[in-house]
């Protein structure tokens, strides 16, 4: 079956602009996660959804970042007033359930470059 997909694969924007990054999880996976990976570092947690609700958004760096998952499947990460420091690869992952034993399946990521 299809894995986690993310669009676009690359996004270049200018400082101050608004961007949306999309994630399509594996069908039937109820848990969805967003991470940010900067060059030379491991992924850093941003937000986790169980179904439609954000169960943990403690990793969002500030109020410019927001994510939604209105129907419990596709999720959109939204970044307002982008800054150069937001440049990174944004990774989405999904898992079968919210249990801590479940491995997460990752998408290929969206590389965001803020000029």
């Amino acid at each position: 079956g299809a894995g986690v997909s993310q669009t676009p694969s690359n996004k270049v924007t200018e400082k101050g602009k608004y961007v949306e990054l999309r994630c399509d999880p594996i069908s039937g996976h109820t848990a969805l996660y967003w991470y940010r990976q900067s060059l030379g570092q491991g992924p850093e947690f941003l937000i986790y959804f169980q179904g439609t609700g954000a169960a943990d958004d403690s990793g969002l760096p500030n109020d410019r970042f927001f994510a939604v998952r209105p129907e419990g499947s596709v999720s959109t990460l939204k970044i307002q007033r982008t800054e150069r420091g937001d440049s990174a690869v944004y990774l989405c992952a999904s898992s079968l359930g919210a249990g801590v034993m479940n491995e997460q399946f990752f998408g290929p990521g969206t590389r965001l470059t803020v000029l």
Partner: protein
Amino acid sequence: AQSVAQPEDQVNVAEGNPLTVKCTYSVSGNPYLFWYVQYPNRGLQFLLKYITGDNLVKGSYGFEAEFNKSQTSFHLKKPSALVSDSALYFCAVRDTGDYGQNFVFGPGTRLSVLP
């Protein structure tokens, strides 16, 4: 809060030789430990996990890892390295003493297998 250390940025090994990629962790409860591999321009791929039971865990592509509670380590191993194993490897932990669902990743170790 949980944390993960991967003390080596880079590991070089000759093809056919055994390889070890090191990981140590810190948690407040019992750890759930995972290894992921990342190939260029691709998402993280799950290799193996330790939840409970046998300290030696076998995973994909001939990899295994040994959980050592006294040393708080979870080193990744393979008896005979292949050139195709060259990639970036991430250790991740979930803490049963933490209600969060996210992984905490280490900074990654780049493995180069030389022909």
